[in-house]
């Protein structure tokens, strides 16, 4: 099975996050990090060493950290709350709801190691419910960069937005496919590749699987929904109206994920479209050294995608 296309550069979204945050913090003295015991895993050593008074280490205590972040934000700081997605926003969801959202505090919740992509860590660490948890919260915005290029463009925009936000990061380095000339805007999705037959929607690096030659002949509209909430209904529906076929793929549970949001959008719009949602179907993850094996097992691999594309193109 084909894995990584050598034409593309491989880079780490996590590293891009840490580097961009450092650059922003050099210019903006209001940027704080509230960390939950995982500093090295989020590549925040450099930030912690340079900005000692702006790096608040809470230890392994997610609930306290979320409300500390909210309290800091109440004194006009822009706060990044950093951890793994399986801990924050998972363990501290009710604190995020009350102390951050209900109190209108500008905290950016950064959940790394999301999805099956965290590989060998297994089911407890493969956060597959974060999008569902976060998109259900009033005032919370939800973002997941496609690759390191988009991460670098996205972070300054998030840092200057006054709203609470959730940012989903992944563990392994991934391919860079984001066109350098594109910018990132909250509430906008990007047509990364233009075609006629099928609209493919998703977020995060799982979408980069679509950029191999195997998919050329299907003539796909590939739309990067990195702004999961607010969602760019105009761009999405315009494409689906054209193709009449929609495939949503995500490294997340089916329940509560982007697919639910898209299905709702299509049905509410009255547009007729075929629809397939590829996601983890009500099950837990498991360990694998290479996450491609997990994508194969859970029906998210290029093979599974091609099968779905064929189904969408069939007459029946």
């Amino acid at each position: 099975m084909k894995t990584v296309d050598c034409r593309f550069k491989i880079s780490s979204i996590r590293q891009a996050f840490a580097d961009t945050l450092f650059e922003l913090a050099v210019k903006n003295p209001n940027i704080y990090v509230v960390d939950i015991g995982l500093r090295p895993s989020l590549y925040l050593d450099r930030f912690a060493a340079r900005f000692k008074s702006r790096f608040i280490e809470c230890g392994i205590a997610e609930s306290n950290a979320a409300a500390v972040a909210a309290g800091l934000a109440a004194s006009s700081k822009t706060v990044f709350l950093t951890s793994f997605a399986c801990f924050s926003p998972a363990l501290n969801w009710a604190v995020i709801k009350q102390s951050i959202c209900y109190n209108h505090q500008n905290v950016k919740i950064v959940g790394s190691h999301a999805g099956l992509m965290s590989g060998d860590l297994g089911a407890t660490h493969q956060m597959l419910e974060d999008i569902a948890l976060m998109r259900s919260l009033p005032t919370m915005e939800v973002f997941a960069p496609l690759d390191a290029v988009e991460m670098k463009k996205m972070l300054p925009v998030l840092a200057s937005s006054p709203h609470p936000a959730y940012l989903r990061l992944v563990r392994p380095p991934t391919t860079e496919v984001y066109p350098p000339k594109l910018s990132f805007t909250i509430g906008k999705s990007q047509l990364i590749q233009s075609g006629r037959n099928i609209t493919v929607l998703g977020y995060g690096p799982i979408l980069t699987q679509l950029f191999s030659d195997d998919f050329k002949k299907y003539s796909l509209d590939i739309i990067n929904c990195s702004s999961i909430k607010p969602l760019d209904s105009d761009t999405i529906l315009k494409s689906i109206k054209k193709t009449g076929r929609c495939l949503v793929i995500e490294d997340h549970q089916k329940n509560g994920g982007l697919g639910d949001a898209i299905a709702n959008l299509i049905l509410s719009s009255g547009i007729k479209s075929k629809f397939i949602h590829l996601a983890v179907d009500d099950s837990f993850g498991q360990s694998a050294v290479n996450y491609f094996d997990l994508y194969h097992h859970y029906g998210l691999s290029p093979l599974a995608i091609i099968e779905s594309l064929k189904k969408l193109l069939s007459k029946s």
Partner: protein
Amino acid sequence: MFLPKNSAHPLYPLSRSLRLDILEMINHAGFGHIGGSLSSIDILISLYNSDLFNFNKDHFILSAGHICPALYAVLAQKNLIPRSELLTYGLFASRLQGHLNLETPGVEYASGALGQGLSFASGLALGDKTHHTICLTTDGEHNEGQIWEAIAFASKYHQGNLINIVDSNGYQLGGSTAEMMPLTELASKYLHFDWTVITVNGHNFYELQKALKTAKSSSIYPACIIAKTTFAKGVSFMENKFEFHDVKKLPEEIYLNAKKELEAK
């Protein structure tokens, strides 16, 4: 330590009138957490009428959002909300929600789910080191693990500008704190986390003022004031009865008897 009689304190009359406000609010709404509101009211009166803090600059965080009738009564006494608005407590479209919300003038933190306020207060105290942040929690609230995360955090960051007042009334929704989840030696636990600890009678204004002064002067260590209070203080037949943690519509007779007792004080 010689202190004059509590009834001689200039704030003492407020103790009576604001308790009546709480009763009227809860009776009118047909709902409310009366036990904790009556146990904490003297603490709030003491805090808001003290020269030690200026809440245009210093911060007050009520962590136990369910005792908001007590805070609403004090905010009305300080003219932050009109007194006439008190009777909208808990009603549809009112600013005075059943648990705190930010629409209420003078409310800096909207609480309801227990255990989060002290963490928020710690964050705020860290972000605004030039002023004090005072938090009011309850003893029952210390069942929440998050409180202990916050206690350790405030100690680590030497938050001398943070004060946590614990309304220690001994009761929670389902029974006494001792039987629900005992908090033996609470003062000693705070001490072991390197906090300055002061234990006072939470209904005595002289003691409360003195404790606030000591707490304010603790500049390296965060300070905890354990205010020993009587649950539902002021209404004899409600006192120390966990069934009065929260009430629905009060029967006319209970309301009138409670009012009679509070007026007689």
